[in-house]
């Protein structure tokens, strides 16, 4: 089947599909009139019941914590997949660690980039830790804060070279940190079982609304998820960078 035939068949099928989709969407309630009962119950009940002010984080780590555990394992599996796929092939070997470009000289890192990178790294890491720790109070949580933490670490590579980044950690340490985050999530869930209740039940003291030490198990789970996402994303990006900058083909 040539490309043109395939394109024609696809356009026909897409037209029918989009028509059916829009007809189905026509049966949805009007935009702005949400009628689900679960959302209303959660909005009104989460704050007095769990002493938490960010209801989205409560849904993620308390009411539907089991689903978030599944999502976290998708992340874990994807990172494992990337590190397995991007391993050194038999015809590649570690070369000199330096940025390179074929056919032209690599310009040195400009001073503006250096200053900005070095200046922005501590505030970014601090901001990432803040977003993770305050996930149950303000918009944020483990997922967002973990990515911000990874960004802060990568600013060091932008400001300098991959060698500077390598001095911060070792790949086994990153892998252990990621595994620790995933295991801590399960361990906190098991605490619910040990207390005689369900898995991932919120059994720790709830504290006062609006304070940092509140909402029971949500805050420790937030920290565990932040650790895992942060370490996993740094591992992911370091694997890509290692692939591009360090490994050279030995013909």
């Amino acid at each position: 089947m040539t490309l043109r035939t395939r394109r024609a068949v696809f356009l026909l099928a897409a037209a029918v599909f989009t028509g059916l989709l829009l007809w189905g969407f026509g049966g949805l309630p009007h935009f702005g009139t949400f009628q689900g009962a679960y959302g209303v119950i959660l909005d009104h009940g989460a704050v007095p019941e769990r002493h938490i002010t960010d209801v989205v984080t409560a849904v993620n780590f308390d009411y539907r914590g089991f689903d978030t555990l599944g999502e976290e394992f998708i992340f874990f599996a994807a990172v494992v997949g990337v590190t397995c796929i991007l391993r050194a092939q038999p015809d590649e070997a570690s070369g000199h660690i330096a940025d390179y470009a074929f056919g032209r000289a690599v310009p040195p890192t400009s001073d503006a980039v250096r200053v900005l990178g070095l200046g922005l790294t501590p505030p970014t890491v601090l901001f990432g830790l803040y977003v993770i720790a305050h996930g149950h109070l303000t918009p944020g949580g483990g997922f967002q804060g973990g990515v911000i933490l990874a960004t802060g670490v990568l600013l060091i590579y932008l400001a300098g070279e991959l060698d500077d980044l390598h001095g911060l950690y070792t790949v086994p340490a990153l892998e252990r940190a990621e595994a620790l985050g995933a295991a801590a999530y399960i361990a906190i869930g098991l605490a619910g079982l040990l207390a005689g209740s369900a898995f991932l039940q919120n059994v720790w003291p709830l504290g006062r609304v609006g304070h940092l030490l509140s909402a029971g198990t949500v805050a420790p789970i937030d920290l565990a998820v932040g650790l895992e996402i942060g370490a996993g994303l740094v591992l992911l990006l370091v694997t890509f960078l290692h692939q591009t900058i360090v490994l050279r083909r030995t013909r």
Partner: protein
Amino acid sequence: MTYLPYAVAAWLFAVGLYGVVTSRNMLHQIISLSVAQASTYVLLLSVGFRTHATAPVFGDVPPTRTAVDPVVQALSLTDVVVGATVTALLLAIAVQVHKRTGSLDPEGPAT
């Protein structure tokens, strides 16, 4: 006009799918796939929206204020990060395919 968000979600999905089907470069395919993923976020958040309602964060507003649905936001939030990681997996596969076969064309030898 009240069905514009749903139409935009359907359009994004169709456009992303068109990009995947008619692409000659694997990286272009992967980025079009992420556009199709974005359509699901738009649909979910539009379904949960309520006019004149506030965000479901009650740090500074009393909990008796009407707020939008928090469940669909929880779904989209984890999906954004996990979707990017799965895209990274696809990119790694594309890099290795290029190493083995020397070409990024998903159709194989040029037809």
